[in-house]
């Protein structure tokens, strides 16, 4: 499987980054919702630590992904109405923005709250700013609101992909799946 993207499908690097990040984002969302209601104790502390570690990982993967995207091409859009293509690209743009804003708002909250930031017990990262309780409260709210907006955008993203896969029966989803075999283009659409 080629690492770089072709005219018709995403390269393996982007595919793996996509699914790894999808897993990280969804897993961390669940963890985030669960951890806030845990009773005080070591399990809660450790769950927060894992949530932060995963968030940092997603942020690192995002940076990697943006860098790779700058070096690599994107496949041509599947045949679809112009509004769909515009909506898809807009959704992608917003997703990238949120994938940056979520970990950053978490990092700001963590810093303003005066908490340590450690990546899977391996190394620590600095605070982005000094302790500030008012800001901590705002950042915490923002972190949660951003998450719920992200979920809405993700529903649009996943919904679009599934509509194209099941109803349009094109390669929108398949070209992002490792190991998947692309469907033949509908007759008349092949150049």
């Amino acid at each position, binding site marked *: 499987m080629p690492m770089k993207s072709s005219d018709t499908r995403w390269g393996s690097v982007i595919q793996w980054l996509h699914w790894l990040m999808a897993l990280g984002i969804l897993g961390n969302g669940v963890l985030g919702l669960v951890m806030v209601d845990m009773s*005080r*104790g*070591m*399990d809660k*502390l*450790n769950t927060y*630590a894992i949530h932060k570690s995963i968030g940092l990982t997603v942020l690192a993967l995002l940076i990697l992904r943006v860098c790779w995207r700058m070096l690599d091409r994107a496949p041509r859009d599947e045949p679809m109405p112009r509004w769909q293509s515009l909506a898809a690209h807009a959704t992608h743009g917003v997703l990238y923005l949120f994938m940056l804003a979520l970990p950053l708002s978490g990092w700001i909250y963590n810093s303003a709250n*005066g*908490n*340590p*930031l*450690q990546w899977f*017990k391996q*190394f*620590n990262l600095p605070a982005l700013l000094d*302790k500030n309780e008012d800001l901590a409260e705002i950042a915490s709210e923002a972190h949660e609101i951003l998450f719920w907006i992200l979920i809405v955008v993700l529903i649009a993203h996943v919904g679009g992909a599934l509509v194209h896969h099941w109803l349009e029966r094109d390669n929108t989803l398949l070209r992002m799946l490792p190991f998947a075999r692309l469907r033949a283009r509908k007759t008349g659409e092949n150049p």
Partner: protein
Amino acid sequence: MKPIVCLLASCVLCSAAFAADYQVEKGSTLGFSSTFQGEKFSGNFARFEARIRYDAANIEASKFDVSIDLASASTGDKDRDDTLPGSEFFNIAKFPNARFVTRQFKRNGEQVIAEGTLTLKGIDKPVDLQVTFVPKEGGATLDVSTVLKRLDFDVGSGEYADTSTIGNEVEVKAHLELGAKP
């Protein structure tokens, strides 16, 4: 025989006079620091009492007796400060105070060491303090420090015993402003 008794008596008086008793004055602090998730945090005890007798010329005559109100610990983090009094940490319901009493003073080169016993959470363990005593007008400043292991005193027991999250080593430092006892 009589002159010898007199001499002995005066010696006792002399040494008692030199080994001055001090009272702890404003500006004194007793703090501690450890690590949590790889980052250092520090706290202090707002309330403690210290009976300090010190004689730089005859350190064996010195004596420290410090009692610490464990409920007065604060570290600047609400969750942590709410956890510290609990049974896994200080268990202040059962052991409200910690106490440090010296057994003997020694010199290690220039450094004065106060060897004593720390009683914390009902556990007695020997603890050595590094002592820096600097006389000043009407009193002295006394700085002491040591590093102890929290698990020696069962502080942070059960699930909190995991030292990969909460460091075992705790640095304890005190800075005392001492005034001559009236």
